[in-house]
């Protein structure tokens, strides 16, 4: 499947781009993160500490063990600091 992957804040800066299309057979968010990490050093760096990474599937907060079935957009970002 083709996934639209978005990065925000320092994840965006470490990866070097705000979004990309990713072709993957990953079943869960965690699987996808493993694939990305294995790809290039910048991904490994961005995902080195998952405790400070949050994920949203189709614009809803989700967990790393969430399934990617039917998902079109996934976003990775640090803990939020609005307000």
């Amino acid at each position, binding site marked *: 499947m083709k996934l639209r992957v978005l990065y*925000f804040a320092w994840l965006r800066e470490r990866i070097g781009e705000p979004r990309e299309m990713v072709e993957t057979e990953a079943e869960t968010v965690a699987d996808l993160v493993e694939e990305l990490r294995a790809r290039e050093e910048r991904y490994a760096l961005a995902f080195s500490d998952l405790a400070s990474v949050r994920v949203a599937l189709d614009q809803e*907060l989700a967990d790393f063990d969430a399934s990617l079935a039917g998902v079109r957009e996934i*976003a990775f*970002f*640090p*803990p*939020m600091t609005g*307000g």
Partner: protein
Amino acid sequence: MAVRVQSEAFEYGAECAGFAASVTDAGAVVTFAGIVRDDGGQLREMEIEHYPGMTERALEAIEAEARARWQLSDALIIHRFGPLSPGEIIMMVATAARHRADAFAAAEFLMDFLKSRAPFWKKETTARGSTGWVAAKDEDEAALRRW
């Protein structure tokens, strides 16, 4: 009920007045405004990044949750993104209810959830030019647990 996410400045006083004037059957209006803190002249700029689309959804969900929990006549959330200077107003919430306890509780609830559940990130540039992302605070995450 309204949620606005915008880069333009808004007039906090005019928003407060308009909100209070528009509510019916309310005896209490509470507003909160978040201001870019100067921190002793160390800060030059604060840039707010957000996730267009998800931001509006998250704020609307938080507002709907507040309306489900308390008897509110009305609620308003405005949040800016983009570059901001020290002293500028970042965002505001307003709540109106028959009784003050509901208006206060709902405003605090909106703020607590907005802080940690709406996709905004703050980046600071100091007067000396160094930049850094503001880290989330444990106390903000802890604040969610009281609701």
